[in-house]
């Protein structure tokens, strides 16, 4: 939901601001001519195109954050854990239905296209050929990787701080955390906002990459894939998430490549099967994980702060400082 919201908001902001900044008429952002004019503006004005991109990202993050705050209201008041999944599912579907049926938001069912990468103008300076299209896209992909690394570092820093401890305590036992003067609902609200800001950012980045924002992209299978990534890598382990994301993305890309290969051998093969098969494999992976390895591949990491060094100090042949004795977690104590 937050991902989709970021996408739609980012695209809309981009579509409205590009002509505005370059002095062209805004007009109806949904029709074909406006799409063409967006592309030509992006080609002609490097500064405008990059700054609009930045603003679009900012708006997407803002929208994600606000939505996260709004969603945290019901999410914190539900009585059962699974009611939360229910509410978020309802939220996601509501978003999809509203966007699909409201032409005023992101052009409704047809979506909003012609969102070029912020480096589209580079193709002016490149010799025509395959490079002309590849370089701006590649450069943009690199920027996305940088931002992803930034988010990862931020998450790592947060996790290895007193705040990370606070988050884990709230996750493990709400009542005990309250007895230690921790404001549980405020922490939950904060982390929901942080999470949805990141999702909003990701949504806008994605839209800029594929060039179009349509509601049909935000199907539950997408969220499902993210769950699998998360559980595959290990619950409270950021590196695990990277591993999970890598495996699932490989599965995704691998299925595309193998699909093309298979098609060349069996021209009659139905290409949809590859996509369906991928979703089925994801479902099977999740089930197997839940039954046999609920902790994921990597164990939960400890909150690494200087506190540990005090205890390791003096133990000559202890593990390297600030590395606590890594105890593999057992049971499903933290999953509840």
């Amino acid at each position, binding site marked *: 939901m937050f991902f989709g919201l970021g996408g739609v908001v980012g695209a809309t902001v981009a579509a409205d601001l590009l002509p505005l900044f370059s002095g062209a008429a805004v007009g109806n952002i949904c029709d074909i001519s406006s799409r063409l004019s967006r592309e030509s503006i992006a080609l002609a004005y490097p500064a405008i195109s990059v700054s609009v991109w930045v603003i679009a990202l900012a708006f997407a993050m803002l929208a994600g954050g606000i939505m996260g705050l709004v969603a945290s209201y019901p999410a914190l008041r539900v009585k059962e854990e699974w009611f939360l999944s229910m509410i978020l599912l309802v939220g996601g579907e509501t978003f999809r239905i509203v966007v699909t049926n409201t032409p005023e938001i992101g052009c409704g069912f047809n979506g909003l296209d012609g969102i070029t990468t912020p480096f589209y103008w580079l193709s002016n300076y490149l010799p025509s050929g395959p490079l002309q299209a590849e370089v701006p896209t590649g450069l943009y992909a690199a920027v996305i990787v940088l931002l992803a690394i930034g988010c990862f570092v931020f998450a790592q820093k947060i996790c290895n701080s007193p705040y990370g401890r606070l988050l884990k305590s709230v996750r493990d036992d709400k009542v005990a955390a309250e007895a230690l003067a921790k404001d549980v609902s405020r922490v939950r609200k904060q982390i929901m906002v942080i999470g949805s800001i990141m999702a909003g950012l990701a949504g806008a980045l994605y839209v800029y990459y594929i060039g179009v924002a349509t509601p049909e992209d935000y199907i539950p299978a997408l969220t499902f894939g993210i769950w699998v990534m998360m559980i595959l890598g290990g619950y409270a382990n950021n590196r695990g998430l990277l591993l999970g994301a890598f495996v699932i993305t490989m599965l995704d890309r691998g299925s595309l490549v193998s699909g093309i290969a298979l098609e060349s051998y069996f021209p009659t093969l139905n290409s949809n099967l590859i996509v369906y098969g991928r979703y089925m494999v994801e479902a099977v992976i999740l*089930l197997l994980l839940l039954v046999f390895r609920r902790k994921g591949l990597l164990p939960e990491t400890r909150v690494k702060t200087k506190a540990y060094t005090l205890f390791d100090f003096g133990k000559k042949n202890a593990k390297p400082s600030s590395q606590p004795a890594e105890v593999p977690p057992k049971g499903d104590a933290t999953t509840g």
Partner: protein
Amino acid sequence: MLEWLPGSILLSLFQGSIYVVVSLGLTLTLAVVKLPNFAHAEFLTIGGYVGVVVSAVYPDNLLVIGAAAFLVCSAIGLAIHHIAFKPLMDRKVSIYILVLASFAVAQFIRYSVFSWASVVGLLSATQNIKVYSLVTLYNTELTNVYALAIVLAILMSVLLELFLKMTRMGKSMRAIASNFDLARVSGINVSRVVDVMWIIAAGLGGIGGMVFGIYTTVTPALGFSTLLDIFAVVIIAGLTSFTGTIIGGYIVGFSQTTVMEFLNYYFGVSLGYQPLLPFALIIVILLLKPTGLAPSSTGLSTIRKFARRNSSGPREGEPPKE
């Protein structure tokens, strides 16, 4: 002026009846094994497709088609219980893990159906069952499908009630629903009763899907598109009340059709927003009155106890132990 109304009410009754039949199965699952089964709606899809396949061989033979839908879904229900849910329940995992697992099962079934349908070219199919008008009242035709659904809803509710109240198996099922551990130690063969529960729950989903499939086009996404509506029904019902489910079914049916058409007719609200009304019901009820609108004695508290017992993690508002 109001010429749309009788037809709309009839359609509401029809949809409500389908919801009742399908949701009764989900209510049963929630009551007996405390599982919010997000894969339940997939039985609807399967039921619809069984209808498509069987009606191609036995056109218009409702009894055969219905029985086939029931049996196929029962078999699949049993299979997913033994392959996916039972291993998890034996490990006493939290309800949250079970929800995730049911999502996985749903996704697996859905895309299996997608794959199959795409290979045989039935991504959008219709059943070979003739729809004809029985009576015409106020320019509105009461067709056989409508009548069938309404009769089926009443019949299934009554049969289920009789089963739970009169038979030994049904009584055991109620015992398990109210206290799982007590039922086990008092000599009830829990796993057999749970198997029967799955047969009935999945079968009801299948029959509901088959009847729905006469009225609408069957697609692999049929079940998923009604998933949240079915959950709206059981949430209105307070999760485990059968009477509540019947009331809830018709509330959702009416909100989707009559209320929506009313809003469309007088306020110009786009019919595309149709699913939003049950959604709103879900949110409002979960927030304000999670015990549902219908009174239920065991209802949520049973689930809450279960969830607490099964999670070694956070426990909230534990009753006093001294």
